[in-house]
Every structure is written in structure tokens, then in C-alpha cells.
């Protein structure tokens, strides 16, 4: 690596690529490509971000160029304020449930937030992350005061702000009233098989995973800790922050201790069991509640396991009760 003289080489102890990118590098209006599908996460700060295959990225590095098919823009409006246990995951699942996973193929979603501080960067990162699950070509949050204050807090400078033209034309538009959302899950084996927590309550759960580039940020663990504080989990519970920076902050905040005392297994920033690689691979017949982004057959391990996707509040409540549970009781 020294021979290559890479100026920004991040070895282990940094975290998941997508989280490191929004913490340290990406500005509104930039074009980002990387060799992982969840590169869409950088849309949270208003970048046009796409995952590509390894050869495509190698070609972009060598030639400094790539090609894109220009997508059709689609407008999404988030209005009002979300309830206590609602976050970005419920918004992503609401869109997937209403439109299904093939609708946005060839489109780029532009998300306008009515009250910027009511839908903070963590929530935006979750929605942008799951833009790939919607098969959108890109998903961008229109930069606003929240974007500027996030980048300023993380990096100490005010980023340039690029916003859509006021007379921009959209294929269509869609509004989500945040105050009306209830906790949602995606049932096996499809990201668009969306159900309310009430429809699935009581389903026995073997393992809960709170983490990933989808929902492994400060507010996710704070939400989980509010439910788990002073109690003991009944299902195996694995908690993994998305980056080392977040892990350190969560230690300083005392959140790591709250989760550990509740019986969670906690480790430094990695993808964890999300893609069935390590740290909690699903066994045959097991049921998992996961805050990650995909519940495809065999995704987290055995082809005979089942994965329910949810936000951190449903995940924590389910870990506590050993079955899918409604966080609104806490």
C-alpha cells in the first residue's frame, strides 16, 4: 500500500465504506461511484451516488471517466415530524411497500424535507442507503440546513450547496406524512413485502441484528438503548456500529455499556451478519430481525432461515421479548 502512495487509504478500524464517505468526504452535488451497491448512501448529503461492479470502478480509476444512463427524476416530499419510534427505515419501507421493488428502475429520487431538523442525517442515510432496494438509479436528499450543519460538525467547513432548479420537471411526485407512519417491517424474502408491526407481532425470533450501513448510526443505537436500558434480551442480540468513529462516540455516551448490560454482543464497525459473512450467520430454521437492508433468501446464511427487516426500535423490542414486538409499548 505504501508503494501505491494512496493519499486516502483507510485500513481496518475505520468502518463501512459508505459511512466513512459521508463522515469525511462527500459534498452536495458530487458524483460518487464505488464498488458496492449501497454507495447510494451518499445521496443522504445530496450527491449523485451509484454502486458499480469492480471492473467498472477499476475502469473509472484508470480512465477518470465512466458512463451513466440519465435517469428520470421523481420527487418525494417528507412533511411533518416522525413519531418517537419512527426513523428512516420506516420511510424506506413505506416507499418500498407502496411502489414495490421494480418501480423506480431508471429513475432518480429527489427527496425534499419540509422541516430539515425533523429528519436528521442518520435518517436520511438509511433512506438513501435503501435507494438501491427500490432499484432507483440514485436517491438524493435535497441539501438543506441539516446537510450543512452535519458536514460542518463532522469536518469543520461549510459545503457548497447544489439544489434542483425551481422549474425542474419530475416524472411524478409522492408525499409521506411522517406523523402518520407506524413501525414497519419487510417480511421474508423480499424487501417490498412490507407489513405493519401489528400484522407480525408475536412471531418468535432467534436473533436480532442492530447495525449495518443501513441502520448502524448514533440515533439507531440511542433508540435501541432507550428500550433495552436496565433489561435483559431474550433473543441473541448483535449490535455493530457502522464505523469506528461512531463506536467511539457510543462508548463515550455510555450507550455501549447499556447495550452490553442488556446482553447484546457488540463489536467494532463492520458489515456484521448482514450478508451472511460473519458475526452471526443465520442457521437453518432460524428467524432473524435485522436493521440491515436485504432479506433475500439465504442472504444472512442458511437458505432455510427467515429475515425480517425493521428499524432499531422494533429490533430492540423484539430482542427483549424474543418475538416480534411493538416498540410503542415502551
Amino acid at each position, binding site marked *: 500500500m505504501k508503494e501505491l502512495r494512496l493519499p486516502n487509504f483507510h485500513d481496518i478500524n475505520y468502518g463501512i465504506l459508505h459511512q466513512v464517505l459521508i463522515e469525511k468526504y462527500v459534498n452536495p452535488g458530487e458524483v460518487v461511484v464505488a*464498488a*458496492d*451497491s449501497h*454507495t447510494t448512501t451518499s445521496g443522504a448529503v445530496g450527491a449523485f451516488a*451509484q*454502486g*458499480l*461492479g*469492480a*471492473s*467498472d470502478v*477499476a*475502469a473509472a480509476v*484508470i*480512465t477518470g471517466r465512466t*458512463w451513466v*444512463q440519465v435517469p428520470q427524476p421523481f420527487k418525494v416530499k417528507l412533511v411533518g415530524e416522525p413519531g418517537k419510534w419512527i426513523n428512516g427505515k420506516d420511510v424506506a419501507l413505506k416507499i418500498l411497500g407502496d411502489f414495490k*421493488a*421494480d418501480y423506480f*428502475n*431508471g429513475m432518480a429520487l429527489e427527496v425534499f424535507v419540509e422541516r430539515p431538523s425533523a429528519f436528521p442525517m442518520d435518517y436520511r442515510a438509511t433512506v438513501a442507503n435503501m435507494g*438501491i*432496494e427500490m*432499484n432507483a*438509479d440514485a436517491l438524493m436528499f435535497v441539501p438543506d440546513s441539516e446537510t450543512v450543519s452535519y458536514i460542518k460538525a463532522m469536518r469543520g467547513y461549510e459545503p457548497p450547496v447544489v439544489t434542483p432548479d425551481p422549474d425542474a420537471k419530475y416524472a411524478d411526485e409522492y408525499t409521506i406524512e411522517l406523523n402518520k407512519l407506524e413501525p414497519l417491517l419487510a417480511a421474508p424474502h*423480499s424487501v417490498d413485502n412490507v407489513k405493519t408491526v401489528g400484522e407480525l407481532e408475536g412471531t418468535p425470533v432467534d436473533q436480532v441484528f442492530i447495525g449495518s450501513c443501513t441502520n448502524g448510526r448514533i440515533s439507531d443505537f440511542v433508540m435501541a438503548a432507550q428500550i433495552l436500558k436496565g433489561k435483559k434480551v431474550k433473543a441473541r442480540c448483535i449490535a455493530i456500529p457502522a464505523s469506528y468513529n461512531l463506536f467511539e462516540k457510543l462508548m463515550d455516551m455510555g450507550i455501549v455499556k447499556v447495550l452490553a448490560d442488556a446482553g447484546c454482543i457488540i463489536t467494532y464497525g463492520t458489515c456484521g451478519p448482514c*450478508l*451472511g*459473512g460473519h458475526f452471526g450467520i443465520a442457521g437453518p430454521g432460524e428467524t432473524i430481525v435485522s436493521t440491515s437492508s*436485504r432479506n*433475500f*433468501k*439465504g*442472504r444472512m*446464511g442458511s*437458505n432455510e432461515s427467515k429475515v425480517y427487516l425493521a428499524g432499531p426500535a422494533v429490533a430492540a423490542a423484539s430482542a427483549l421479548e424474543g418475538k416480534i414486538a411493538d416498540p410503542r409499548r415502551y
Partner: protein
Amino acid sequence: MKLEGKVLKFGDKIDTDIIIPARYLKYTDPEYLAQHAMEPLDPEFYKKARQGVILVAGKVFGMGSSREQAAIALKAAGVKAVIAESFARIFYRNAINNGLPAIVLPNATKEINEGDYVVVDVETGEIVVNGSKVLKGKGLTGMPLEIVKSGGLIEYLKKAKV
């Protein structure tokens, strides 16, 4: 550029964890990856594809991960081309970048059946089913066509001497 073979047919939303599960991604040998292609849905897929087949599928074929091994595994298994009602963006590029032609054909799963024999013209997108029925898909033109003809993106870039 024409390709032909018997049809193996799949439905909508065939994802990359179906095409090649993540537990095999640490292997780089295309032949090994091929042996596990489509395993969660059809453990016999590799045997069926050996003879050289055309894959037909529904909507957003290849959705999910950016893993290029999805295209590599299918091609090495014996898939000559994929015809789908639509493709997930990353898979579509990965297929082309590995010399595996991807043809878009709305209603593909209604018009073509498992076991049909099809001839695909990669450039015009014309598909002849069982020597009689003619369908019009979206073929490859321009740079994607040149990449496929070169056998993939790496070979294309070597030839272009960039």
C-alpha cells in the same frame, strides 16, 4: 452476433444473493462460482446450464448487490445471454462488462416458455422462438455492444489502449 440455446426460465426480482450467495464470494475461480449459481432456487442449475442456455426472467433481474461474480457465475455455468423484462442497473452493466449479452424484452416471461429454443440477435434484439415466433427486444448498440464483442470491459480497454 447471434446466440442460441434452450431456455431456462425464472420469475421477477431474481436477486444477486440467489444468483451467487455471498458465502462463495471469497472464491475467484469462475468454474467454482458457476457450480453454485442460482443454488438457493435450483441446486440443479449448473447441470442444466452446461449444454449452453439462454436465461429468461421477469422484472429487475439481478437486483441487489454490485457483486460482479453474479454475471461471471452465470456465464461460466453456460448461460449465453439473459433476456429479461427489465434489469437491475448494476447487473446490466456487470453482464455487459463480462461479455454476457443482456436483452430487455417486455413480457418476456409471457412470450417465452421453459424449454423453448431461442435464437437471439444481440445487435437488433430480435428473438426467434422455436423457429417461428419473432419477438423484438432491445439489443445492444454503441459502446456496450463493442464491450460485449471484445469479451468484456477489461479486454475492451486493453484493445482501446487507454
